[in-house]
């Protein structure tokens, strides 16, 4: 394993019946970085994570955590990691405190440290007051925070998070994001899957974009933006609602998004002049007034969509 890589994944593949969920995925994660696995639903992100942490056996390929093969030495490999699976629960009939103690015991953390660490984590995640409540009465956001606390009970070097903010309200999601950045500051390595592109752009040092079980692009969000630097995005806001069909007819060789009074056009930078001329033509033809016009490079979401839809 190259120096500095704490997770190495080589050629992982898994099929469920006739469905090939993951097909030859490889990636490596450096110590202290936040690595994002991005992709639409069904891209194979969760299966990849499950194989990487060793709870699903791959049809082929290998995964290493801190140099340990997760399928040959699962206990050793997992003693370095904390995991928050996407769809998972704490033990709902145990209290918040009992759940944390249970996980601390599984990680063989001595009692004195266990108690201290649990208190700190509960305070940091703002669920200390709920420590004597059974997990079944917690809200979704609090349950997610408890799962994160449980993942941190073993003071892991590497944290795996599968859709960490999925289904959470804005406040809880923001809290988890800032906590992840704090954990990165502390030197933890974080691997997260998400289909929230803004979140990935905000948090990740590097990303791998998955679609249909394969990695279709990888790099830093900035590198991907540069790769798509030849593209421009024009945003317009008219004085009244526009007919999507008519507009699409005028811009049929470009990617167009119409929403009420708003129009977004994605085109190559070299075509910018033509597009602007056409905008003027459309404006005159339908007696529209432009209230707002902005041109910029592609954002991360545009890049993601182009990659997943095979437009890049």
């Amino acid at each position, binding site marked *: 394993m190259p120096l500095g890589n704490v997770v190495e994944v080589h050629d992982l593949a898994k099929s469920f019946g006739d469905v090939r969920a993951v097909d030859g995925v490889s990636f490596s994660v450096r110590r202290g970085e936040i690595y994002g696995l991005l992709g639409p639903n069904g891209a194979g992100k969760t299966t990849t994570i499950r194989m990487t942490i060793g709870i699903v056996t791959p049809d082929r390929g290998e995964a290493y955590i801190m140099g340990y093969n997760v399928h040959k030495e699962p206990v050793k490999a997992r003693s370095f990691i904390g*995991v928050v699976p996407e769809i998972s629960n704490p033990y*709902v009939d145990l209290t918040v405190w009992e759940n944390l103690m249970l996980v601390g015991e*599984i990680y063989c953390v001595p009692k004195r440290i266990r108690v201290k660490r649990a208190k700190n984590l509960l305070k940091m995640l703002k669920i200390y007051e709920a420590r004597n409540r059974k997990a079944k009465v917690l809200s979704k956001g609090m349950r997610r925070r408890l799962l994160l606390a449980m993942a941190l009970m073993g003071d892991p070097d590497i944290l795996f998070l599968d859709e960490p903010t999925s289904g959470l309200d804005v406040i809880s999601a923001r809290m988890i994001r800032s906590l992840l950045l704090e954990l990165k500051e502390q030197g933890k390595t974080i691997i997260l899957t998400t289909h929230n592109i803004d979140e990935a752009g905000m948090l990740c040092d590097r990303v791998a974009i998955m679609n249909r079980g394969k990695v279709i692009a990888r790099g830093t969000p900035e590198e991907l933006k540069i790769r798509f630097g030849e593209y421009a995005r024009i945003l317009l806001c008219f004085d009244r609602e526009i007919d999507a069909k008519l507009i699409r007819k005028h811009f049929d060789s470009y990617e167009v998004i119409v929403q009420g009074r708003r129009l977004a056009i994605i085109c190559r930078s070299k075509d910018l002049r033509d597009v602007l001329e056409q905008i003027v033509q459309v404006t005159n033809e339908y007696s529209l007034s432009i209230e707002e016009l902005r041109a910029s490079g592609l954002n991360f979401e545009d890049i993601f969509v182009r990659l997943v839809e095979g437009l890049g």
Partner: protein
Amino acid sequence: MRFEEIRQFLYRIWVLCLKDMKLYYFKGPTIVMGILMPLFVWLAFVAGRGFSFTESLPALITLASFFVSSSITPIVMPWEARQKSLEMLLSKPVTIYIVLLGTALASSIFGIFISSVLVTIGLLLNVIPRDLISLALGIAVSSLCYSFMGLVFSAIPSDVPADAVMLSSAVRLPLIFVSGIFIPVHSLPHYVKPLAFISPLTYFSDLIKNAYGYSSLLSPSIDVIALLLLTIIFAALALAANKRTLTRRL
């Protein structure tokens, strides 16, 4: 494995055993059912047939140990899969084997506890076993054997606990009738006899009859060896089958 790894392996089994005991076993309703269910089956056989308590206590202990140790194990895995806590647990430094061994240990301890309550009631009513060591060994080994037997049924690739309960009941209930608890093995029809010899209940029933001074079919040592062999077979089956169905369960 080094000493520290073995210690951690055993400690994790114990931690998960305590978790299962807390979540599934040492709760009022489970304890009451653990005593009531075998009690009702026992009453159905002995009521009105002129058996004294002394004569029928071995049958009651056999039934209690069997029902209690094999009732909860089939549902733990499907239940935890349904509750979505299984994936959370398996992402910690444990393997499916550690999880299953913890479950089997919890179930065995519960079986030993309920059987011990019945033995104690017997002692209070002056029903004294002749061979306490055989009795204790038999209760311990058979409880473990029944726990692993229950875990075999838990491998059903479903997260509906009722599916596992149905399957286990379909196998466990007929065993009561072919294992010499109420009808001696030599009185069974010849086509049923082979079943008696692959049933762990037969050996435990025989062992416990011997321990209380009644006539038995085999020597206690053969009963214990047979129970140990069946324990190993059920344990191997349970571990392999549950590992095989794990991916479909998550």
